[in-house]
């Protein structure tokens, strides 16, 4: 699966396998590695790293690829992620079907697992509950994130879940963890592999596709006391509070300039906190931001036009970056017959177009936990 993804990305870029001389990946002991993939594809690498890392690693690795290229360590880096996130290693260690649940608890897990506290929905829930308590964020507002992303996914033939959903569909789905996570507030555990190619602008200009330029990267940026960040108030503040200083300064743009966002939507709540932290709306008003139409296709600043983790599939952060590259190429692979040539109808009804018109500047906001983030601004 990993080999297929890297192979497809190399072909899409118009590269030969031997043009790839660098590989970066991240994993949670659940992935194939660069040594295996390079061998599969017959590639000899001058640079590779398989980093241990969770969500928000994607954007950070784009930054590391730039560093490796500018340091002269290699010329072209394939960043990949390969994970059996449904059938094998599920986030939080809950058992996949047919596998025994872990029963031995040791080390840092002694502070949490004896309390039946181990999955991401639980690990983030104290932040979500406190945000609802302090700012009045509602389940209906959260459901609007799922509604928007499902509308987008309905125009993505590759999305895992393509059905358009309503607020009531979300509110009537069964609870996983209260007060913020119904089943449909949670993303889709998925077996998948993904790849992003990073190379120098000079080289990219001579390849098959229009290059998309990297304006700035931040990552992985943390809050104080990141390992047990609930010690540090305000716990409703996402680490983007710090990262936004880096990513906007280095790109020379402001939130208002961004036309398209891609947020790590592990849960409907995570974009709410990212939009606040990165300054797309005032603190406490993330619920209004996501339910105002702003993030919908056709809105002021669409978010996760592929359907994101909630609907396209959970890729640990990769697919939102890939989607923004597609969008900036004006090649969203929707149902418009001429999408590959940038010909779109901009009719966003179900089964139609998902290309954002005339989009030039896009941003990704990665989430690891409330205390961890990365960000990426790219342009056409």
């Amino acid at each position, binding site marked *: 699966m990993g080999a297929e993804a890297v192979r497809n990305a190399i072909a899409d870029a118009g590269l030969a396998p031997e043009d790839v001389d660098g590989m970066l990946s991240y994993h949670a002991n659940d992935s194939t590695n660069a040594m295996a993939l390079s061998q599969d594809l017959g590639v000899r690498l001058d640079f590779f790293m398989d980093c241990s890392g969770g969500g928000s690693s994607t954007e950070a690795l784009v930054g590391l690829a730039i560093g490796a290229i500018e340091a002269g360590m290699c010329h072209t880096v394939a960043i990949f992620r390969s994970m059996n996130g449904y059938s094998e290693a599920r986030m*939080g260690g*809950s058992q996949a079907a047919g596998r025994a*649940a872990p*029963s*031995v*608890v*040791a*080390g*840092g897990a*002694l*502070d*949490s*697992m*004896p*309390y*039946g*506290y*181990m*999955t991401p929905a*639980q690990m983030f*829930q*104290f*932040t979500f*509950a*406190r945000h609802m*308590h302090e700012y009045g964020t509602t389940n209906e507002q959260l459901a609007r994130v799922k509604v928007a992303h499902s509308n987008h996914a309905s125009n993505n033939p590759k999305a895992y879940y393509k059905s358009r959903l309503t607020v009531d569909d979300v509110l009537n789905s*069964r*609870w*996983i*963890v*209260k*007060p913020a996570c119904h089943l449909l507030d949670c993303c889709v555990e998925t077996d998948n592999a993904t790849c992003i190619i990073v190379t120098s602008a000079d080289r990219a200009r001579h390849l098959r596709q229009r290059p998309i330029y990297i304006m700035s990267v931040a990552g992985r940026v943390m809050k*104080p*006391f990141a*390992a*047990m960040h*609930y*010690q*540090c*108030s*305000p*716990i409703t503040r996402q680490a983007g*509070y710090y990262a936004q200083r880096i990513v906007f300064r280095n790109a020379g743009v402001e939130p208002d300039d961004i036309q398209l966002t891609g947020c790590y939507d592990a849960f409907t709540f995570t974009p709410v906190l990212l939009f606040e932290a990165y300054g797309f709306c005032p603190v406490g008003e993330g619920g209004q931001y996501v339910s105002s139409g702003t993030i919908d296709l056709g809105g002021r600043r669409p978010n996760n036009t592929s359907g994101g983790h909630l609907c396209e599939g959970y890729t640990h952060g990769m697919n939102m970056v890939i989607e923004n590259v597609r969008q900036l190429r004006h090649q969203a692979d929707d149902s418009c017959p001429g999408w590959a040539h940038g010909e779109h109808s901009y009719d966003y009804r179900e089964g139609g177009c998902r290309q954002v018109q005339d989009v030039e500047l896009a941003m990704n906001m990665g989430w690891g936990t409330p205390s961890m983030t990365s960000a990426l601004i790219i342009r056409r």
Partner: protein
Amino acid sequence: MGNAVDDERPDHSEVTVGEYKSLQLVVLPTDSEHRGYFEEARQHRLVVQRCAACGMLRGAIGAACPFCTSLDWSWQPVSGRGVIYSYQIVTQAVHPAFADWVPYPVVLVELDEQRDVVWNRGLEDESVSLRVIANLVTSDPTVPEAEENVAIGKRVEVCFVDLDDTTALPQFRLSD
């Protein structure tokens, strides 16, 4: 398993094992902090680490003091009283061990000691408090509190589930 590597593994003869809801709570020989924590709990004392250099308490077990980086510390008993700072109700049994408990509350308890210490000179409007994770339980500490009784701001106090002669697990229950 017949693996030659087995002989190279650490000696686990001193491992302390407490069994709780079918989970094996294992304190490795290299984890003296958790050993002390659970042993103090068996004496029905909730303890936190106190820095020997600056005297600050820390809310999460760690090797160094986040306020001054000193490596020297001792256990400091605290009152075990505090307030529910945030909460969650777990309705999906995330582990078979908790299948008989759903729906059950997990609470973030802010202890009464050392609240709201200004962090980083207040430059980022941040403060640090002692906050620990546990279940909210009833007068029987093996029974989870009812969902409707869980709310941010309610007062709580520590209680303990004895696991064996040497270890206990701290929990919290509602108080006045």
